[in-house]
């Protein structure tokens, strides 16, 4: 690489060009700096560096630019990299093409690459108060390169950035290996070439889409963009969403009207569902529900039971006739009847509607039984999801599937509460609807693409069953509480369609504006899909561990080692990590999958406060495995291991490093490190004493415990903070946990302590606001306990 860089620098007369040689003609073409960036990083068209914020913003994104075009990917997976072209003169016509990539005798065909021109859109205001992004021209619509050339979009102004989005999807039959090839950038006839690599891993991502999703797409908006509001175009949009592993809400665009009955519409939908139910790429679809007025409620509608039953009967009839369970992927989303009851506080009506749902479902089950429907279909029908947007509330007891915005599931205790709901037979999805805001994951144009990719990882970790948003093609603008028409090219020029959220409500731009018969995707869809693919890979890992468990008669879980990976990416659904962090996490996940392909599992991994790591390694196929260079011996395929200072598994040429998990420092807590207060914040006398080698404490009702961190270093460079606490008794206790230092506190998390030993782990401590705190002095636990209880604190430790 050094040699290439040297040549390039010479060619470009001192420009900071660090990619391949500059071939082609020299006839009047611009000199250009050509760099690369990960597909998730938003590189603006230009930066206003006249302010300190602007300069810092530019610097932040300059840091992610690279001189390497390098992609690591599974087979059957999409991965993207951007080329950022910055010419020193106006470019009247540029184009980018990708040739075949080679690995020995194997060829990764140029046809596997998709090259798109990045269209820039003006973001005038940043509405997310915690966002560190700035106004400017953001890339979003990704126009096929050929189309951009045909419509003359392929120009670049001197000094501005032009992004080119290159996505590779490696065929399922492609041989693993590192492929190299050439990308050609032509600027007004002057050609530059970039050498690129694509590392194809020996693993094929499943076609299946396991995370359900609901993306409403209203046909009524289509005319403004596509000049086409036919069912055919609706299905094109459905297919387009499927390409990004998302499910359109309804399979058809028809509903009962005039003389067209509910039965007719339902039969039409059900027939479409036959194909969708059998297509593993379709994650989910909704069964329509309709509203009706009720004299019982003046604050809104209730469920039209008659229509709903007609729909269910039609699905039962068609499913039975075709021997396909049409309910397994189906769900009901009542956004048109009881949207966000927690916000509108119409608890009674929401519960009433949910009971209506249950009642109709019971009638449908009776009908299905009378029609001799298959038992598995009846069971799916009984379990039909009824999704209600809004968070769990004790006032919404009759809701079956809660769907809060992502930020609601924002701490460990809440995650645990929702998991318990699931165990009790209920379920939960999550959704985005202008909310949440940065630093929570968003699909906003002015958010870096990392957060939307992380949604897939988070959904897997937190057991979220589905993702819902409010619209994919809002070809309108919301002005003064009314949606007004926005048409044609204005849909590209105006992305401020919703008052406080750029990009919310649309994942597409109308292709018809550029002569295409399908919509043009937003960059955000690519990052969402990356996250959905990551979810699928995580899910596949889980499935493989489950299969190995079943085969060997043992219980294997990757949760522990995955926690190490999750902990490097985010904490409590807040996203501050970089694209580099995601690539590292993806690489670790890939290695776990490759090990699993060999029949090797890393189960029960635990990083202890004293820096030790324990796990159980499983090798079902007799493949030799080493830990930190030492070969392991297996009994019945299992080997319990313990390590300090590193955890590197190697087997059959595959090397897995548990994310460099390493405790940099730890200390045992002593009685002098612990102070307990009562609910009035008065020091509790004699509450702390040494017990069985640990520090015991009796916590008064609604008490507080301060745990000194003076023996370890917790600051802006800290990765994770580990705390060992043994809880006496039989009841779990909830606590808010914060770091304290220099008269300031920073909330870390809310957690439950469970009876027995707990290793509490707070990840990405570095993400907290350290601007006014050099080092944390103590950890504050504020408990929610009606009765006093006792606990014992063990060691505290921290990682990088």
């Amino acid at each position, binding site marked *: 690489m050094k040699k290439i860089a040297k040549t390039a620098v010479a060619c470009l007369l001192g420009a900071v060009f660090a990619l391949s040689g500059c071939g082609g003609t020299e006839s009047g073409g611009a000199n250009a700096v050509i760099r690369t960036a990960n597909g998730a990083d938003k590189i603006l068209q230009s930066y206003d560096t006249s302010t300190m914020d602007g300069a810092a913003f530019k610097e932040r994104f300059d840091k992610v630019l690279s001189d390497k075009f390098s992609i690591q990917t599974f087979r059957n997976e999409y991965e993207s990299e951007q080329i950022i072209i910055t010419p020193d003169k106006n470019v009247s016509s540029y184009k980018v093409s990708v040739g075949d990539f080679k690995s020995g005798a194997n060829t990764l065909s140029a046809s596997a690459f998709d090259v798109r021109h990045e269209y820039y859109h003006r973001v005038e205001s940043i509405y997310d108060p915690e966002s560190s992004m700035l106004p400017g021209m953001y890339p979003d619509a990704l126009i096929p390169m050929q189309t951009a050339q045909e419509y003359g979009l392929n120009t670049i102004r001197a000094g501005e950035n032009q992004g080119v989005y290159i996505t590779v999807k490696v065929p399922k039959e492609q041989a693993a290996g590192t492929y190299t090839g050439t990308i050609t950038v032509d600027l007004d006839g002057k050609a530059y070439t970039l050498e690129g690599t694509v590392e194809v891993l020996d693993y094929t991502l499943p076609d299946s889409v396991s995370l359900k999703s609901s993306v409403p797409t209203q046909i009524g908006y289509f005319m403004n963009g596509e000049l086409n509001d*036919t069912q055919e*175009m609706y299905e094109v949009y459905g297919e387009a969403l499927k390409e990004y592993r998302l499910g359109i809400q309804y399979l058809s665009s028809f509903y009962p009207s005039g003389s067209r009955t509910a039965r007719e519409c339902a039969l039409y939908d059900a027939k479409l569902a036959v194909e969708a139910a059998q297509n593993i790429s379709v994650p989910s679809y909704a069964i329509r529900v309709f509203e009706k007025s009720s004299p019982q409620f003046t604050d809104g509608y209730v469920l039209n039971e008659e229509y709903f039953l007609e729909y269910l009967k039609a699905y039962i009839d068609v499913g039975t006739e075709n021997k396909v369970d049409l309910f397994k992927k189906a769900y009901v989303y009542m956004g048109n009847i009881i949207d966000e009851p927690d916000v509108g506080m119409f608890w009674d009506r929401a519960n009433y509607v949910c009971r209506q749902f249950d009642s109709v479902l019971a009638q449908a089950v009776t009908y299905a039984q009378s029609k001799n429907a298959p038992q598995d279909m009846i069971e799916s029908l009984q379990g039909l999801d009824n999704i209600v947007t809004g968070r769990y509330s004790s006032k919404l007891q009759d809701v079956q599937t809660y769907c809060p915005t992502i930020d609601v599931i924002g701490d460990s205790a809440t995650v645990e509460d929702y998991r318990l709901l699931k165990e009790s037979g209920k379920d939960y999805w999550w959704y985005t609807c202008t909310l949440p805001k940065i630093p929570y994951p968003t699909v906003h144009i002015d958010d870096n693409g990392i957060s939307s990719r992380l949604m897939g990882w988070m959904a897997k970790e937190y057991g979220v069953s589905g993702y819902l948003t409010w619209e994919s093609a809002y070809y309108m603008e919301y002005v003064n509480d009314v949606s007004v028409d926005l048409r044609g090219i204005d849909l590209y020029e105006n992305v401020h369609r919703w008052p406080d959220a750029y990009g919310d409500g649309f994942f597409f731009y109308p292709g018809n504006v550029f002569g295409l018969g399908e919509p043009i995707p937003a960059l955000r869809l690519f990052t969402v899909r990356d996250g959905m693919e990551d979810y699928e890979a995580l899910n596949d890992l889980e499935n493989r561990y489950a299969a190995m468990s079943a085969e060997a008669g043992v219980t294997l879980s990757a949760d522990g080692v995955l926690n190490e990976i999750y902990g490097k990416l985010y904490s409590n659904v807040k996203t501050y990590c970089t694209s580099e962090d995601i690539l590292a996490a993806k690489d670790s996940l890939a290695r776990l999958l490759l090990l699993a392909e060999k029949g090797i599992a890393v189960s029960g991994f635990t990083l202890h406060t004293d820096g030790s790591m324990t796990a159980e390694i499983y090798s079902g196929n007799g493949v030799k495995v080493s830990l930190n260079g030492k070969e392991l011996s297996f009994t019945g395929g299992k080997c319990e291991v313990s390590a300090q200072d590193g955890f590197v598994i190697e087997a059959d040429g595959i090397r897995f490093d548990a994310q460099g998990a390493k405790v940099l420092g730890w200390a045992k807590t002593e009685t002098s490190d612990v102070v307990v207060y009562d609910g009035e914040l008065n020091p509790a006398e004699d509450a702390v004493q040494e017990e069985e080698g640990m520090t015991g404490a009796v916590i008064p009702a609604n008490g507080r415990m301060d745990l000194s961190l003076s023996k370890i270093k917790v600051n802006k460079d800290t990765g994770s903070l580990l705390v060992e606490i043994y809880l006496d008794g039989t009841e779990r206790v909830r606590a808010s946990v914060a770091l304290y230092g220099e008269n300031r506190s920073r909330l870390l998390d809310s957690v439950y302590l469970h009876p027995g030993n707990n290793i509490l782990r707070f990840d990405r401590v570095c993400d907290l606001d350290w601007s006014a705190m050099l080092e944390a002095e103590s950890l504050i636990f504020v408990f929610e306990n009606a009765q006093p209880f006792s606990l014992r604190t063990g060691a505290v430790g921290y990682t990088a």
Partner: protein
Amino acid sequence: MKKWISLILAASCAVSIFAAVGCEQKTEEKPQEYVSALPVISDFESLDEVYARMSFKNRFGKVSLNEDKKYVTSGDRSLRLEVHGDYVPNSTPTLMQVNFTGLERENIPYVDLSCLESVQMDLFNETGAEQTLELALVIDGVTTDYQKVTAKAGENKLLTAEYDVKGLSVGSDMTKAEALVIKFPKAETMEANANLFYLDNLRFTFLDAPPAPIEVVLDENEFCSFDKAYQKYVVQAGGVGPTEGCQPILSINTDLQYCKDYTGRSLKAVLPRGTAPINDGWPYFTFIDKLMDQFDFVSLTEQNADFVFDVYNEGGAYNFGLEAWSDINGLKSGYSFTAKNGWTEVRVSMQEFLGVTKNEQMLAANVTQIVISYGKFDAPDKAFYFDNFRFEFSGKNN
């Protein structure tokens, strides 16, 4: 964006100027045939123009530019309209709207159609059968009655919808024309082919000069008898909420069987089957401002006149609302009445009707509209006949 704005401005100015010229200067300076050929509403040459000025409503189907010369009569392109609709007969109609002045947001002035004679178009009807299109104008926010035109299968050169601008001027300020709406026939079923049309050379023709205005003349105590020729223009259909496709269809009835006392004429109001959502939206008809301006409602209220009219119903009893609206928030009144089978006389005292006040403002002094409204229904169309809207003085206070 700039390019778009200038395009819209150019298009709109052209129409405005030509429309205005049509009335005031053309007879002196331009031969008639030249003027008539000028005001092209659209020649359908660019997609940009289609996006900027046209909208297609209610599951219209698929719209594109055609370059097949077989279906082009002017310029290089025409508009290809593949009309689908929702495949449900008698429900929401498929509408194409051509805004004369670009999008509303551009805040471009209205177009003066005071001299409008007709709207013409070249239409290729590729449905294989004769079809009926309906055209209406949007004048100052109000859609005029639809004019039906019949298109034979195949080419229809200069298909014409003539407008009685003299009559339209009674109820509408023709200098404030906004758009042309064309109702296309929708496909009958999803399985059937869509109705295919090619549209080109859409334009106005103009009269040499604006016609002399019709004066509103009333008999003593008359509000509206529908017996006078101009009175066919004094009612307008409308709706609160989603009422597209089910607003009343209003016409003058000359069949004496449906005229009170078998004399004169009456207003026929056909109430179409409601379109979805049935439980939302209230269609109505109202009387034009020019008629309302004839009355001193304060005086009538002080005299405690009765507001009276007759309604004929061939079917089962049906409920209407009689409402009075003002521009003051909350200052309005409403009564319900039942049109029983046969003739029903509806009578309300003006003191009750317009004597209401809010914040010391009396409705009679501020009333802008008298409205007859009803709820949507999911049943076949209903027809009612209204006659002899009048004031009666019972001798109570006068």
